[in-house]
């Protein structure tokens, strides 16, 4: 009985992870991966950019940024965001 338990244990604990690892090799070849959810990536980028704009405004308000720098950088970021929004609208 103990021997059976040991064998079962060995099977489950040791063989299964190895089988799980090898399994993908038995599938047909996948050469391209859906460059996953590019929509998600764009959305994430948009959020990051919004955050950066907000932070820029804050830095300017507390005096860590001079006006010229602030205006330039903000327009840069805003351009990026509008580009992303256009892309997202297409999808």
């Amino acid at each position, binding site marked *: 009985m103990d021997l059976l338990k040991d064998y079962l244990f060995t099977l489950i604990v*040791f063989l299964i992870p190895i089988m799980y*690892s*090898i399994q993908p*090799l038995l599938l047909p070849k996948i050469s391209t991966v859906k460059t996953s959810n590019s929509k998600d990536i764009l959305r994430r980028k948009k959020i990051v950019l919004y955050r950066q704009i907000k932070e820029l405004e804050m830095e300017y308000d507390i005096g*860590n940024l001079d006006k010229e720098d602030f205006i330039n950088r903000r327009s840069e970021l805003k351009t990026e965001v509008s580009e992303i929004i256009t892309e997202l609208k297409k999808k």
Partner: protein
Amino acid sequence: MTPIAGSVALNLAFGCSILSIITLFFYNRTADHRLFLTGQRLGLAVSFFVFIATFVLSYQLLISNFDIDYVARYTSFETPTIYKISALWAGQSGSLLFWLFILSIFNTITIIQNQSKHHTLMPWVIITMSVTQGFFLILTNFITNPFEPTQTDFIVENGNGLNPLLQNVTMAIHPPMLYLGYVGFTVPFAFAFSALVNKDTGVLWIRSIRRWTLVTWLFLSIGIILGGWWAYQELGWGGYWAWDPVENASFMPWLTATAFLHSIIIQEKKDMLRIWNMVLIILTFSLCIFGTFLTRSGVMSSVHSFTESSLGPVFLIFVFIILICSFGLMYFRIEDLRSPRKIESVTSRESGFLFNNLIFVVICFAVFWGTLFPVISEAITGNKISVGPPFFNQINIPIGLALLALTGIGPLLAWKGTSNQKLIQKFTFPTLLFLLSAVAFTFFKMTGYVVISFSLCVFVFAAIFSEFLKGIQARTSKFGESTLLAFYKMIHKNRSRYGGYIVHLGIVLMFIGFTGHAFDKEKEFGIKVGEFEKVANYNFQLTRMFEEERPNHYAWISDLRVTDNNGNFITNLRPEKRVYFHRNPDVNKRQPHSELDIFSTLNKDIYSIFSSVSNDNNTAFIKIMVNPLVKWVWIGGYLLAFGTVIALWPRKD
């Protein structure tokens, strides 16, 4: 579950780590996605097998299976359960398995978290982590195996047991905390290395690991502070930091990691300091491995070192491989690492960060130099010379104070450059306070570094305060919020920044605590019941001395009544001298232990140790230390942790 399962698990883990590396290598060449999946799953399998091995060892410890050498060495039937568990990291082979265990947890989290993102970076991230796991698997499989059976020709009835000195909660938590820190830097390093390989050293890898780095940094910080706190509370020499090689081993990666944490802010915002960031993370990871090496091998004479074994050279080889591969790869990727932008002015925030990096690295070098001084001096002069705390303090205090100053100056600087007008506007208030404090402290008869340190603390405090104030003012004028609401919202919307400022405040408090060290006073004396002794501005009277037999030890207790110069009662101290296993017939197995008593206030700690009793039991030998401001170190530590938690608090996007 036999112990063999543990050994086999370790073997399989090692095999899988090699297979994982090979598979991912081929994936990079063929772009066959199946190979990526297999490589990724093999990476997870390595972790899985390590988990099995760890659970097996933990189980053997819990059931006290003394057929295993490790169990017999570090536990006995009587060891309380919690310490049977903590015995997992008490010894060399167990602690290496524990390192692997934590790395495997982080490995699993990293792989699962990134399942759908970062396809380009992940293969090499997994390869790097597998190589690191592989290294520790080589150690635990072939050099120091925790499942080694007991080598005796009799049946081991009961184990050696864990020394009672180690049976306290802090000692149980301190190693895991530190390990969480040491091991954690494997992940940012893996991403950095992958970024180098993939010629993608821009913002992507930084964004992937920023939070992870902060969490790891927090663990390392807590681990270091806990170690100091434990030394202070338990070991009885009245200090919390001795510049011991093993202490230094944890401090060095902390220094480069802190620089890294700051420096990646610049890369995220301005895409500068790419090379610095690479260098810093490589150094941090290497120092973590090196630190593990210093702690585990007998290379440096330290109160922490274990038996010398063949571990030492293997660790060193691994560190060299890391350094050579990483810096070598950096050399070949130097074009990719050149930042498009340049630092334009000395009085810019960017410049502040640059000097911040520089000073941290320099302190790290100074500590490294002092720690390895015996090795260096022997190589040069033939004499092995060790250096003690006075050496480290003399070198590091001025540099540390420069860093403290920078903590105040940095946040006041503007991006790209600060105009003269702005400089005056921002710096006048803190600088004035600095000068006034310096005068005030000198007036109170303080001198030299103490005056500078306290005055700088005031300076930094003023600088941080003014930053908070400006933030609140910006919100109240823009949004019409009340001060309190503005304060809350400001922090809420800028958790990294203000969390960081709170951490800086914590550091200021710690510096206040460190500076108190300059005023430490101590005295050792013999005293009879009824007699008085004066130390610093306090009077100590031994009111009673008695003995007590307790379940697992024998105690001599002294009651000390403490009063100040005016006769006002301050406190009663009750230091004890204990002997554990006092009934053991073998005198050498009896374990003496001083249970010290500390009276702690914000102002000072009064620290008492009962050293010994005279043979006629009439005279107690007591050591008293009056340590000002120590409590501020621990308060600062709490604030540091609190600030970090705020910075880490997740946003609900």
